[in-house]
């Protein structure tokens, strides 16, 4: 009798525990629902891990000012597309996300809202930069960035002060073409010990997921020139998007600079498969190398390396010279791959709240301060006055080069057919560096992948 009573009581207890959970849930969601109407929540899926912590302070300030909660989630490097794919299918999907240009727009066109009537679009100083389709505007660029060869002027000056240097010039800004660059770099490698460096260039990071500097940024140059030769289009991205196949005409120019990178670096060329971008930036920051290819976003990474010896006044940009005719007038590679898009599948009020947040970030005093001082963005908006530009040394250098009498190389990699194309290119480069592929085979991989990826 007692046992039966005990077991019955236990069953009732278990059932009531389940029912408690059930009855609470509807009440809780009802509360949340009412709360949600009053305190809106918008969700931003961030692409740049370098500045993720800053968004937390921005979100806090915005919530204090307007009561709208901004949830910021950052995708780890190289995982943005995969994270976005899974997040956007949820009911609590990102309301603000990023696309990388016209090719990214193709994947996400069912999810991007038309922004042509928004104030945010009217803020753009150059409206041709936005991602458009027909009459609508679907992607708004929010940062202009540049990349090139970052060099440590302190080490360069030490080199130019050497008595037995092989070149006639006396400072790094006199390097205006590939032949001079090659002569300087190879001579610096010869004088490694005297200069106290392990190599002229930082390691060419070819680890999986860390190859973007070569298969996207560096690949931009030969393809930019190839598409520029196509006079039917006045924009290399449009020419690239229309190209079903490429000849990789300027492959040898790519080889010039790539060989220079891998043969004069801090690591032997066969070991590059284990190097990451963090390794290369650390080598530069610790003063073990004189030059590294990267963009102005890298300043915060260099600054935060423990034991950083590079001073703000010593860090400068040099264009990436590849031996193309007329490159004395070539500048840095400037453009953007970062476009904000608003999720068209969430409620209208969430969309409006998201646009309002972005407008606040790029036009209010507090927002603009964050953008120029903490995020370090060179924002392409007319809401920024002359003295409201970022103060970090690399951003200043980019603006310096933009103003010089030099032709910036536009970012053409927005026209690359797919992520897989870039990955195939990068994988082929790794095998070339290790010696298991010849350069002709790499060229074949590039040409074949472009054609097959474009056909898909």
């Amino acid at each position, binding site marked *: 009798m007692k046992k039966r009573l005990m077991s019955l009581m236990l069953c009732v207890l278990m*059932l009531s525990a389940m029912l408690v959970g059930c009855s609470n849930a509807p009440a809780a969601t009802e509360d949340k629902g009412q709360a949600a109407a009053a305190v809106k929540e918008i969700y931003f899926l961030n692409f740049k891990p370098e500045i993720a912590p800053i968004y937390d302070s921005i979100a806090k300030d915005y919530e204090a000012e307007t009561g709208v909660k901004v949830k910021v989630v950052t995708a780890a490097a190289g995982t943005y597309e995969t994270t976005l*794919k899974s997040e956007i*299918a949820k009911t609590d999907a990102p309301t603000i996300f990023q696309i990388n240009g016209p090719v990214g727009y193709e994947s996400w066109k069912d999810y991007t809202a038309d922004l042509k009537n928004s104030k945010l679009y009217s803020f753009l100083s150059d409206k041709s930069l936005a991602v458009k389709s027909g009459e609508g505007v679907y992607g708004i660029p929010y940062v202009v960035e540049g990349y090139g060869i970052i060099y440590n002027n302190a080490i360069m000056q030490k080199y130019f002060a050497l008595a037995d240097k092989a070149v006639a010039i006396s400072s790094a800004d006199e390097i205006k073409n590939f032949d001079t660059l090659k002569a300087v770099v190879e001579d610096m490698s010869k004088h490694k010990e005297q200069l106290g460096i392990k190599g002229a260039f930082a390691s060419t990071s070819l680890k999986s997921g860390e190859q973007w500097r070569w298969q996207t940024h560096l690949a931009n140059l030969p393809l930019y020139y190839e598409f520029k030769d196509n006079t039917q289009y006045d924009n290399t991205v449009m020419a690239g998007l229309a190209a079903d196949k490429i000849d990789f005409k300027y492959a040898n120019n790519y080889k010039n600079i790539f060989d220079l990178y891998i043969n004069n670096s801090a690591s032997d060329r066969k070991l590059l498969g284990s190097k990451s971008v963090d390794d290369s930036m650390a080598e530069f920051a610790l003063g073990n190398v004189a030059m590294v290819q990267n963009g102005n976003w890298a300043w915060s990474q260099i600054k935060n390396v423990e034991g950083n010896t590079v001073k703000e006044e010593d860090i400068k940009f040099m264009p990436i010279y590849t031996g193309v005719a007329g490159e004395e007038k070539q500048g840095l590679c400037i453009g953007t791959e970062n476009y904000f898009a608003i999720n068209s599948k969430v409620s209208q009020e969430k969309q409006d709240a998201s646009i309002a947040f972005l407008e606040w970030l790029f036009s209010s005093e507090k927002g603009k301060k964050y953008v120029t001082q903490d995020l370090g963005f060179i924002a392409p908006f007319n809401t920024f006055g002359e003295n409201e530009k970022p103060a970090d040394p690399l951003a200043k250098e980019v603006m310096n080069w933009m103003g010089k009498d030099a032709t910036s190389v536009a970012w053409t990699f927005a026209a690359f057919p797919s992520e*897989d194309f870039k990955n195939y290119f990068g994988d082929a480069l790794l095998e070339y560096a290790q010696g298991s592929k010849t350069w002709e085979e790499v060229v074949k991989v590039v040409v074949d992948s472009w054609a097959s990826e474009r056909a898909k």
Partner: protein
Amino acid sequence: MEKRLKYYFPIFALPTLLAFLVAFLIPFILGMYLSFTEFTTVMDAKWVGLSNYAKAFGNKEFINALWFTGKFTVVSVITINICAFALALLLTRGLKGSNLFRTVFFMPNLIGGIVLGYIWQLIINGILFKFGVTLTYDPKYGFWGLVVLMNWQLIGYMMIIYIAGIQNVPPELIEAAKIDGAGPLRILRNVIIPMIMPAITICLFLTISNSFKLFDQNLALTAGAPSRKTAMLALDIFNTFYGKAGWEGVGQAKAVIFFILVAVIAFAQLIFTRSKEVES
């Protein structure tokens, strides 16, 4: 008592059944449906029939991954089971410190996949540094690296299962065999192995399915480098899904093919070894 059991049975089984439905059955059926469609996220799918399967079989990376996984499974299953069985035999002789050894050999199994992959990558790269190359130099390095890693992780686990099996062999049988004049090898072949057939069934099944499904360690150790040549089936499916727009359906089709392959092989193995089991 029986009536009570039948009465209360659904209440107790319901939570687990629900969990199984939501976490396994529904995604599985949804996946089979999606393999015949072209989709960007799981909500907007367009029916395209068998073209995803055609693309999957025509994709040379998939075929390469199939071969690589097949070779890997054969090598791993043989090495893991032989080493685990040998260790189990050694550690059931009543040697001093057997318990300590069993614990130590089992410990590698406790480390998760991704961490294990990265640690072994560091170790192997460190060794190869002396030869001036890295793990990505040759797909063979990746292959043997994965084999070593799998062995290190699974030998302890299989050993425990074999030990349990060996300890369950009734000592009277062994004594009877000794009296009949059988040498140790004869005893092994004709008494111990038939008696531990259930353990062999389980170990073979676990090693075959674990080797086929390997993902974490593959991603962490080589990520498919060089040029996707060391990508196993699961990693290849992952890459297909996220590599290009419009191929998510193909990735799903590959996953369905993968499931059918593993299920057929596992069931075939189960039926074969089950038929060899002997009642004591």
